[in-house]
């Protein structure tokens, strides 16, 4: 057992008023420091390629989705936010999503889907705002999730850079 001796207070400290004045002077000084507030709707959030916003599906320049509905993101999703049904296409890539839904209320923006995707089709965009009047409207379907590749390019480049670094560090066995 340790007995902690309480520190003897000096008279100035016991009087308490000087300490109060010290505290007041601190708060007074803070009144003239630069404000930390960001005026959100007018000043939008600063997003970078590191920003992990809501997942979006990349659409090629010819208008086809990259997704082949393989279900990897669906399987990787820890929040069970993704539901995919595929169907056959006439294109060389035989399959594409017929239904691709992400329940944005369930999505936790973890980025596992992006990591799991073998087709570079799903990316964490820089879109962060999420508000609507019904729950149903926040279950995003294929049309709501489609984004041209150009809109996602910074993120794609960034992830590729990161992955390349990782690849070169571990040699193939």
């Amino acid at each position, binding site marked *: 057992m340790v007995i902690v001796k309480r520190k003897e207070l000096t008279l100035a400290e016991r009087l308490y*008023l000087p300490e*109060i004045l010290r*505290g*007041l002077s*601190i*708060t*007074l000084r*803070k*009144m003239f*420091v*630069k*404000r*930390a*507030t960001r*005026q959100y709707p007018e000043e939008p959030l600063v997003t970078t390629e590191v920003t992990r916003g809501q997942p979006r599906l990349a659409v090629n320049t010819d208008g086809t989705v990259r997704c082949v509905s393989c279900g990897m993101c669906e399987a990787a999703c820890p929040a069970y936010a993704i539901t995919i049904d595929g169907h056959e296409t006439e294109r060389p890539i035989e399959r594409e999503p017929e239904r691709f839904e992400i329940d944005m209320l369930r999505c936790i923006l973890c980025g596992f889907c992006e990591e799991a995707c073998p087709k570079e089709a799903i990316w964490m965009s820089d879109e962060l705002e999420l508000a609507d009047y019904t729950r149903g409207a926040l279950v995003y379907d294929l049309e709501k999730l489609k984004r041209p590749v150009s809109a996602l390019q910074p993120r794609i480049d960034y992830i590729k850079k990161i992955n390349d670094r990782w690849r070169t560090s571990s040699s193939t066995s």
Partner: protein
Amino acid sequence: MSLFLAQVLKVVVIFAGLVSAAGVSTLAERKVSAWIQLRLGPNRVGPFGVLQPLADGIKFFFKEEFIPQGATRWLFLLAPMLAAIPAMMTVAVIPFTGVIATVDGTPIYGSIADIDIGAIYVMAISGLGVYGIILGGWASNSKYSLLGGLRASAQMISYELSMILVILSIVAMSGTMNLREITDQQNANSLLGFLPAWNVFYQPLGFVLFVICTFAETNRHPFDFAECESELVGGFHTEYSSMKFALFFIGEYCAMIVMSCLTTTLFLGGAAVPFWAEAPWFVGLAAFVVKAAFFMFLFIWVRWSLPRFRYDQLMALGWKVFLPLALANVFVTGLVLSL
């Protein structure tokens, strides 16, 4: 006739001024707190948020009127009025400025009522304000409210005593209880030739005690045990909503304003402008407003700087420190005066 008109005019102007000042204070409270915390504060309603008190008022009007089950209805309704009205009444004796004009040889003073027992009136009426809090707390039929009310009453007794003793010293020094005369005396001569003859210089200990007691008297931080959000949810006004809550709110800010004015009157020479004894009345009024505004700022400043005391510390401070000090102050004052 014109005398009567002047009186009515004074009542209307001072009363309206008080209530609007309370409104401005709520905005100031939020603005200053924001500044201290590196924020911007309300800035959506009107330029720089100046219309925020108006928006708040409208909001209060449209909130649901709620009376808890088991509440004593008429006391529950009476309490907010009891809290607000005494605070507003006290303002009647505050001399905001010197003589404004002379009508038929009768001077029109800067206060609504220039009465000889001003100091006693202030203490008597402002002491009534606590009834609103106690009744509100008791009538709410809520344990938090009741505790808040009880704390307010105990606190009031502890600190009013010291406060009165400080006023007693001033009265003893001035030889009058008329607040206008106390002001005039501070305005009249100078101390040691370079300081204004304000009581703050004669009674520095009394000034400090008085200012601290005003905090306790108005239930302000760091002595806001009647509300004490961390322990009592909202204290005495936990169950209040809508305009009843707004009345408590207005009452609190009016009490703060009145206490600021009283401190100004008693210690800072009221409307006195240093080294300009013959200043016209409106300059004096401006000087008074500046001085009172400083104390208002102090109220807010302290609230957003200091943590709340512990309740036993508050009582110990009141009875074991302030009361002996105030008594000593009276004794020393008397000793010096008698010499």
